[in-house]
């Protein structure tokens, strides 16, 4: 009974996911135009620190340049890995 309910829920989520995927595909065209038209390089997910707002074009030293001996202290620094170059 529980398993049937769970599978029914998963089926409903799958169908809803398909509809959402269609809507996202439609929005993707807009995202492509805005990336190209403004030359964007990063996702606007975290706006608190410049190295997590623009990890692709930030210096590796940026998290530590607030003052000499500064350590990285923004919460998002825990989620985002420093880019490797």
């Amino acid at each position, binding site marked *: 009974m529980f398993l049937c309910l769970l599978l029914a829920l998963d089926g409903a989520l799958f169908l809803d996911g398909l509809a959402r995927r269609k809507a996202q595909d439609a929005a993707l065209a807009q*995202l492509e135009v805005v990336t190209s038209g403004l030359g964007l390089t990063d996702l606007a997910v975290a706006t*608190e620190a410049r190295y997590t707002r623009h990890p692709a074009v930030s210096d590796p030293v940026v998290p530590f340049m607030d003052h000499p001996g500064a350590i990285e202290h923004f919460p998002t620094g825990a989620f985002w*890995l420093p880019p490797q170059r």
Partner: protein
Amino acid sequence: MARHNLEKQLNILEYALSSLWRHRLKSLSVLLVFGAVIFLLASFQMVTQALSDKAKQVLVHTPEITLQKMSAGRQEAIPLAYGDKLAGIFGIRRVVPRIWGYYFDEVRLANYTVMGLEVAEMPEGARLDTTLAKGTMPRPGDDAQGWAVIGYSITNALDLAGRDTFSLFRPDLSLKPFVVRGEFSRDTDILTNDLIVMNLADARDLFAIPAGLVTDLCVYVANPTEIETIAKKISETLPGVRVLTRPQIQKTYQVVFGWRSGFGSICLLSALAAFVILAWDKASGLSPEERREIAILKILGWETSDILAVRFWESVIVSGLACLVGMTAAYIHVVYYAASLFRPVLMGWSVLRPNLHLLPRLAAGDILLILAFTVLPYLAATVIPAWRSATVPADSALGG
């Protein structure tokens, strides 16, 4: 023979189910804890995978080469004249200067991203109107000054619902006024949420950047397969410049959300710790009641392999259900609640928070990864002690 085996396995499965039901409280608690661990792992996997996917899709259109001037290990403004030095490199289609940076609003404690460029010079610049929820971008030849096109969160932060003008402070604390000319569609939130787009001259004025200097130069090449070659030539021509290529930027987003990040490691380590505790508990021996049950089954004629099969089916049922529950809960958490449990670390102290519209793509590989991290250790942790116990002579187990 095959039919006999199938019947035997079905009977064993029935026994395993009844055994789980007899210990329903214990089974349910294992299921819940196990489901919670899988929920944590699967949520992290889904969030990072959805974000990486989105980055992969959109960053195909990022500038082919971005040039930044480095001085004493730090980025600083790059002279416009550097663009002229690139004229001799064959294959460069155009060089577009940009002034961009961050504007910290001290009243709202929010960071805005200011982007100043001549949109008419950008590829697809003429189609930017299609990304606006309202208003228009300036047409080519339109020399209007003091306009801005803003992201959704800027409208809210500056409270621009009933008006279309706002002002920002220059470094000398004089005010620079802007007229809102358009607002980006909410569908583009993941890229434009905190953006204030304006023309190059206004951005120069706002940040008080001297004439002849810009933040970076976007280089577009005629043939995308030549990006690396042209980047190398640029590095040779302009030694003090950092050359970022499109593939490098795309690669950044394939590694920036990873299990090696602090938060990813915490998810992984907590799952591992849970399994170590579980395995320790199981491996340190079965309870006297369980030993007794196994001994009685052996006296009744069950073989060691049958007892192992019972334990195997019990583990498969518990771990399979936990996996299903955990992954379903993780999907609901990520898609319908926008990964709200992770937002404190994903967005931190950000004041402007975009609507991410996360939609993970559940590939077989991701499911197998989660299964490998969770179900397989559980199977090993339950079957091995059962095997150790089942090989003990029944009379000693009962007598002990």
